[in-house]
């Protein structure tokens, strides 16, 4: 198990956990938490590949990860704003009950 493989496994685990959380929790905020975990796992992947990749001095991986962090922050802000707005409207954050888009 090379170091890179170890980091990749950790990232995979984190990703799976984040996905499980996003898919199984009722609360909308918990879903967002799961998404954050997934994004972080991806960041870890990026940094790991940057570190053990062929051209670390090009800083590609690092830049990608930094931008990912920035975007994730923005997304978290907007998403949580949405959750708050929904809560204000429906007085609940229970995703199981939000099926107005039912086809």
């Amino acid at each position: 198990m090379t170091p890179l493989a170890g980091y990749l496994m950790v990232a995979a685990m984190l990703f799976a956990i984040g996905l499980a959380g996003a898919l199984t929790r009722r609360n909308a905020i918990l879903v967002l938490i799961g998404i954050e975990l997934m994004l972080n796992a991806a960041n870890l992947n990026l940094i790991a590949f940057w570190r053990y990749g062929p051209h670390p001095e090009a800083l590609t991986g690092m830049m990608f990860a930094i931008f990912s962090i920035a975007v994730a922050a923005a997304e978290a802000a907007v998403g949580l704003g949405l959750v708050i707005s929904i809560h204000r409207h429906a007085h609940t954050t229970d995703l199981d009950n939000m099926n107005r888009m039912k086809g």
Partner: protein
Amino acid sequence: MSPVFYLISAMTVAGGLAAVLFKNTVHCALALTVAFAGLALLFLGLDAQFAGFAQILVYIGAVAILVVFAILLTRGSETPKDSVYSSNWPAGLVIAAGVFAVLGWAVLQSVRFLPNETAVPKVTVLDIGNALVGRYVLPLEIVALLLTAATIGAVIVAMHEKEGAK
């Protein structure tokens, strides 16, 4: 694979597990913070110091706080009537397990192609700064725009509507 790595990994994974398993939402947010911290340490271990500190600053310092605020604003701290898990949670579990299986299998399959040890990259903040305004100036500007839009959007979305404008 140093033991430090295993320790930090275990902490991170535990934090993540806790973040999705706890019943109390605030506890989940706090466990998330632990996971973020663990990740930051992993970044530091990967000689990505800037990314690690950025992780701490942004994620722990902003996102986690934001999450907590959101929980508080949506009364998430109260104990819910039904279960915290959705009605058909095994399906999600299975799918997540499937995802992990695929990813893990991919990694393990390609182990022999991965490099063992490489040189430590010498990365300074100056280099990062130069890259930001040099090669990656376009993404930089776009991200700036994005952040502006996200801020405005979040404010508008979460704002109390004025009485007359309904």
